[in-house]
């Protein structure tokens, strides 16, 4: 009896029919993944150290290369592809990526916003304090404003 496989476990290759089997196709997939990942990694190190690129664009470039490397890992090592039997794995991954994006992006936006909003009065930069202290004068200013407003 043929086993009807509706799903593939994450990390397993989707079923390739026997007629398309190549003896070393497994090794080939991993090797391609390794080589592409190596190229991307070396490129990352080069990008971080070169002066040939416009400096403000370097972090963005590094981020793109990192995402590409993660994609290579997912596809070549973890076999997360877009086949019909991989749908559950992709959905779980998509949800995970959404949460990561919300946590990372949300935290960065919020903390930057708090930093800007709460430190404006004192012109002190973060590197002179052990990170993220609200300066007394700005808190007092807020309290003063609130008290004045509620008296009005």
């Amino acid at each position, binding site marked *: 009896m043929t086993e009807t496989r509706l799903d593939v476990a994450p990390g397993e290759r989707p079923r390739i029919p026997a007629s398309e089997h190549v003896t070393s196709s497994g090794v080939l997939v991993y090797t391609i993944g390794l080589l592409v990942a190596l190229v991307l990694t070396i490129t990352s190190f080069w990008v971080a150290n070169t002066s040939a690129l416009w400096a403000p664009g370097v972090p963005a470039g590094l981020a793109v290369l990192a995402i590409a490397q993660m994609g290579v890992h997912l596809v070549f090592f973890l076999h997360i592809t877009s086949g019909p039997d991989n749908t559950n794995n992709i959905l779980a991954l998509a949800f995970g990526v959404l949460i990561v994006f919300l946590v990372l992006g949300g*935290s960065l936006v*919020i*903390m930057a916003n708090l930093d800007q909003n709460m430190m404006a009065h004192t012109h002190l930069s973060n590197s002179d304090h052990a990170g993220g202290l609200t300066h007394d004068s700005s808190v007092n200013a*807020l309290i003063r404003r609130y008290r004045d407003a509620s008296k009005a």
Partner: protein
Amino acid sequence: MMYVNLFWVWGHPEVYILVMPAYGIYSEVSATFSSKPLFGYRSMVGATLAICVLSYTVWLHHFFTMGASASVNAFFGITSMIIGVPTGVKIFNWLFTMYGGRVRITVPVLWTIGFMVTFVFGGLTGVLLALPPVDWQVHNSLFLVAHFHHVIIPGVLFGVMAGYNYWFPKAFGFRLEERWGIASFWCWFIGFHLAFMPLYVVGLMGMTRRMQHYDVLSWQPWLWVAEAGAVIVLGGILCQIVQLVVSIRHREQLRDTTGDPWNGRTLEWSTASPPPAWNFAVPPRVGELDAFWAKKQRVRAKQEQPVSRREYQPIEVPRNNPTGFVTAFFAVITGFALIWHIWWMAGVGLLGAAATLLTYMFHPDEEVEISAEQVALFDRTHPVEVSL
């Protein structure tokens, strides 16, 4: 503030994690006791998915007052208002499930109706709080305390009580005593309102949370009412304890012999009470929602014999083992020790957890096989009215 930010990134989804199972319980209870299918199944699923995603986009509303700019506050205020919509969809679906049905007012249904009536208002105060200017006035006041109790108690606690009464016979083989159940519900319902509605007033009068003492006399009458409410809630809890004791004592009169004490709609009611370790002797064939109900209609229509000749197969079930429980025990020890920097204790906890996991890992058998004869014997000695 980074700590506060990360805490609430977890903390807000957490309260939805708390309430979603309760929503599921309400769906089951309202459908079963109205003898009607759940209204709007697809929109229920859609609403659940919407809540899953949206609950990760609102967390800043827990710290509106901590210095973010107006635009950031506005964004999270808007998302906090949007997230009320899917829950509203669910409330309408439960209402329409009951509408036009023959509603049997049992204890689970009392808890469900109590939920619907109370939770809506609690949710509305949440929408009020979602407005940053309003929140700036009442943040960390008793208004806020009243709001979150006004959603958690009807939402989560009433749901747990409804589920407790609903599934108790399935789990233990006998029903819970009805009258003490009704008494506990009314004590909780009245007590809850007396205990928490005054807190809105007192919160708007300026009383903050976590006060060790207060010296504003005008708050006092309201707080006395709240105290009375708390005492009545205590009465409700005592009624629940008495209910359990009485039910155990009278369990033979309350015995569930058919496996289906509520004329249920879903598959669990097709098993014996309590069910065997393998649940179903033969995997049920399911062609629609409320499969058990559909099967019952077919059997009654055709006057069929409920159980035709069946082929029993041996069934594999997980081996009973305490690994999870013991590992959790060591995890608690480790966590406690890490908080208080008791390094030796942390080591003990980690080693204990590791040893437990290793013991489990090297046990040769993960499963136990139940023989076909054992399955057949159970089925013969525990006939159910209609089985799938």
